[in-house]
């Protein structure tokens, strides 16, 4: 805090009748609450005035558990939580007012916690994990708990951190169920957890608590807390724990607790250590033979991680078939996984080539491998709650999917092959055979002009062939009426006379096209649309103009960027 601001604040506090003194660089504010004087220290730290001032309650341990005020073992000060600085817009041009308003807020919090016992208890239980963290003084690597929420007692294994590293995933201890994990086997954390560099395995169990006691107060030992909590457990659970203790001996044991609180499920743990191998401390008799320490737990469960990362739990049950795992299909697969889709079926008859680098979601080290299989490996490595099947490469073309039995097993089929002939043939099969699985067809046009996605919902009017009705003649056409580039132009290029041709477009174009397809896919899977639709994104004409490429009327007049446009043409001789 700058000296001139410091002086203005103290002057203002005096004007407002606030009792204050200066100790070292801190301003100490005294306030009377129900006959007792509390002291708040405004320390010279934090970003103030570009953030809120930090107020610490002195003599913190004396007051026991207090909502919204932390404590620690190192000193007798507790920070009053008056808000997260990053989410607050401060008037840094009026630091005196900012300081005073923050002080009023801090005093309110301390007053409420001290004066209103019921409020204090409710709030502490709501913030259980934060209060548990105050008790934790274990110089331990953090625990990642990859365990689903299960009732009663569940056996677990703790894979110790690698001793060679001090950062990254190797630095974490990982807790796994003893049997099947809910993650897929290829998931990165699971693979890391099972790696041989994690030499030690410790026994552990998870325990669901229904009548959670308040967390340990300052100066209260974890042993005392656990005894108190154990006594409060149901007789049945106490009996089960006793049995567990009777048959299990260890030198290091972790108890992982989880309990429903109003803001979700609180997860926390106790590390139990003993010099000799003995019965684990799950009974009152055993507890005093152990040293117990509070530990924090990072929960890695489907219910926790998916919503926190923006994924939808409901989509875990959905199965989507993606035909075409090129630049667009690859991004779509990735985007659907990030959204929480639980099951994919990938098909592509092609191999990843070194030329696909930059445009494709895959790493160049997949060169020479099947695109679908490589994508499966990459996605399963990144996303835990995911099952991926791949189609036999020999039967992976779009036309191979013209079988009702195959298509019926999917909630959605996404076609990203960029082949209008195959797509129209597939569409005709779908319509003529009354297949009820919705299909999204997606493709982009070169030179950065845009891309398109077409959702065909078989329960409603409209099909892909509706996009093949010429807008002027109103007759069937071989070019899509969504196009931004006039047909019949030479658009492909070759490089160095290599014999292969390519359409100039960027990975960003592929990603943007994949995005509109993925968004349509999610709307379809969530049953939010209820009719066939098209969505186009329009880029710019800079590159096309530079290459003398003619653009369509639709490009020039298109003003429905990213909007859903109903799809049906009464002239369509396939669906109408």
């Amino acid at each position: 805090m700058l000296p001139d601001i410091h002086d203005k604040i103290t002057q203002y506090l005096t004007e407002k009748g606030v009792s204050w003194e200066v100790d070292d660089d801190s301003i100490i504010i005294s306030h009377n609450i129900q006959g007792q004087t509390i002291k708040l220290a405004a320390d010279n730290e934090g970003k103030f005035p570009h953030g809120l001032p930090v107020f610490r309650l002195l003599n913190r341990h004396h007051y026991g558990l207090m909502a919204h005020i932390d404590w620690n073992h190192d000193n007798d000060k507790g920070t009053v939580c008056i808000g997260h600085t990053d989410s607050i817009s401060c008037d840094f041009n009026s630091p005196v007012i900012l300081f005073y308003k923050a002080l009023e807020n801090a005093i309110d919090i301390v007053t409420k916690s001290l004066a209103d016992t019921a409020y204090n208890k409710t709030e502490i239980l709501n913030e259980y994990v934060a209060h548990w963290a105050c008790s934790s003084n274990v110089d331990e690597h953090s625990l990642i708990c990859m365990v689903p929420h299960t009732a009663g007692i569940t056996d677990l294994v703790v894979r110790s951190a690698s001793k060679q590293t001090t950062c990254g995933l190797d630095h974490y201890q990982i807790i796994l169920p003893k049997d099947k994990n809910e993650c897929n086997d290829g998931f990165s954390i699971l693979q890391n957890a099972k790696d041989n560099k994690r030499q030690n395995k410790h026994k552990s169990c998870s325990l669901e608590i229904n009548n959670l006691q308040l967390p340990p107060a300052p100066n209260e030992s974890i042993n005392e807390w656990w005894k108190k909590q154990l006594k409060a457990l149901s007789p049945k659970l106490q009996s089960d724990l006793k049995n567990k203790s009777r048959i299990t001996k260890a030198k290091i044991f972790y108890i992982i607790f989880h309990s429903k609180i109003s803001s979700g499920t609180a997860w926390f743990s106790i590390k139990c250590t003993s010099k000799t191998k003995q019965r684990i401390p799950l009974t009152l008799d055993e507890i005093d033979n152990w040293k117990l320490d509070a530990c924090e737990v990072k929960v890695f469960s489907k219910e926790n991680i998916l919503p926190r990362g923006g994924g939808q739990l409901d989509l875990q049950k959905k199965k989507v078939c993606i035909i075409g795992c090129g630049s667009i299909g690859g991004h779509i697969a990735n985007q659907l996984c990030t959204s929480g889709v639980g099951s994919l079926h990938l098909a592509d008859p092609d191999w990843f080539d070194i030329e696909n680098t930059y445009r494709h979601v895959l790493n160049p080290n997949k060169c020479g491998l099947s695109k679908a299989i490589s994508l499966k490996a990459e996605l399963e490595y990144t996303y835990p709650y995911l099952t991926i099947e791949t189609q036999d490469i020999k039967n992976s073309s779009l036309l191979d999917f013209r079988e009702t039995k195959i298509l019926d097993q999917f909630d959605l089929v996404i076609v990203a092959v960029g082949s209008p002939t195959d797509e129209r043939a597939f569409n005709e099969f779908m319509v003529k055979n009354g297949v009820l699985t919705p299909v999204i067809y997606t493709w982009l046009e070169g030179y950065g002009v845009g891309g398109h996605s077409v959702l065909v919902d078989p329960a409603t009017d409209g099909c892909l062939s509706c996009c093949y009705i010429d807008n002027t003649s109103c007759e069937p056409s071989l070019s899509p009426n969504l196009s931004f580039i006039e047909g019949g132009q030479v658009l492909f290029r070759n490089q160095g006379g290599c014999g292969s041709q390519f359409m100039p477009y960027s990975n960003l174009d592929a990603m943007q096209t994949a995005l509109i397809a993925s968004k349509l896919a999610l709307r379809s899977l969530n049953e939010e649309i209820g009719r066939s639709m098209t969505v186009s994104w329009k880029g710019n004409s800079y590159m096309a103009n530079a290459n003398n490429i003619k653009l369509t009327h639709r490009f020039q007049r298109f003003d429905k960027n990213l909007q859903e446009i109903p799809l049906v043409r009464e002239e369509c001789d396939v669906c109408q």
Partner: protein
Amino acid sequence: MSKLQSKYNKFHKTIKISQQDDEYKKAKEKDDLILSKIKIAFKEEGYPVKSNFRVGSFAVGSAIKSICDDHSDIDRAIVISEEDSPEDPLAPKKVIKSVLKKHGFKTPLIKKPCVTADYESKPIHLDYTVYKKLSWCGGYELAIGKEQSNEDNKYWDESEPKELLEWINNNVNHKSFLFDLTNDEYDQFIRIIRYLKRWRDFTYTNEKDRALVYSIGLTIMAREQFVPHIGDDGANDNKAFEDTIRNILNEGPYFISKGDDKYDLEVMLPVSPYREVFQNHGVTVGTKLYKQFSKLLNKLEKVEETRSLKKQCEILRDLLGDDFPEEDVSSKASSESAGYVGTTNVA
């Protein structure tokens, strides 16, 4: 509305003449022959033809098959140099008349701006205009005068035939300064011109009345007031036709009320000599055209409001004649396949 658009497309295919049509090819053959004879005759007279170019509906691309006389019109401009040009603008026109007479055209006639003639044995109608090209500026002057005109009515008059074509054929959108017309929208404009000309030919059963509703007047009004309608569900020619007529009637400066339901019609040429197209008979044409346009608009609005394709076709057949197709439920849109086309789709 798109099923109706199919009908409009069919109608358009029926009424349009393009350079691939036999009617055009026959007329062109004759035109080429006459042109070669004119070139010889002009050379002999001492003012050789320096250039020639197509004008009129073929130059604009809005030619239609006539329902009145079954003739194909070809309009051609003959250009001589300023230095060679005779003082009397009637002289070259008389030479053209003489050439036409010798080559099978019945009663060629020298009109004020042109020489016109119908071929005796084929349904071909030719109009020739004579221009001298000014050496100092590259501009043109049109040979004005009839055979019986006195000296005051015979003169070379400043004219911009190419600029007029350019004014019609460019993609300026006169109703919106924000966007030029796209190619598809310009094509729609050309279709609207054809519908309008066919509507005139069908509506004005009296030949004299019809002859006064000049195509160039209709074209200028439509070009200035054209409202394109092409959306993601395709083109809507009916709406474009309707909105264009509504604008001509209500927003354009063309119809001036003279009381007693009489209207003067003033349509200015957008290029030199900036004369009024319907001069001398503005009230005669204007009064009737205003009424007919109002009826046309009313019917087109009814088409928009009507859901039954059958009724829509009936209304349009009343307006545009029997070339507008009837509703035929059994007929599906069908066209000869292109076999294959290159598309821009990639994934």
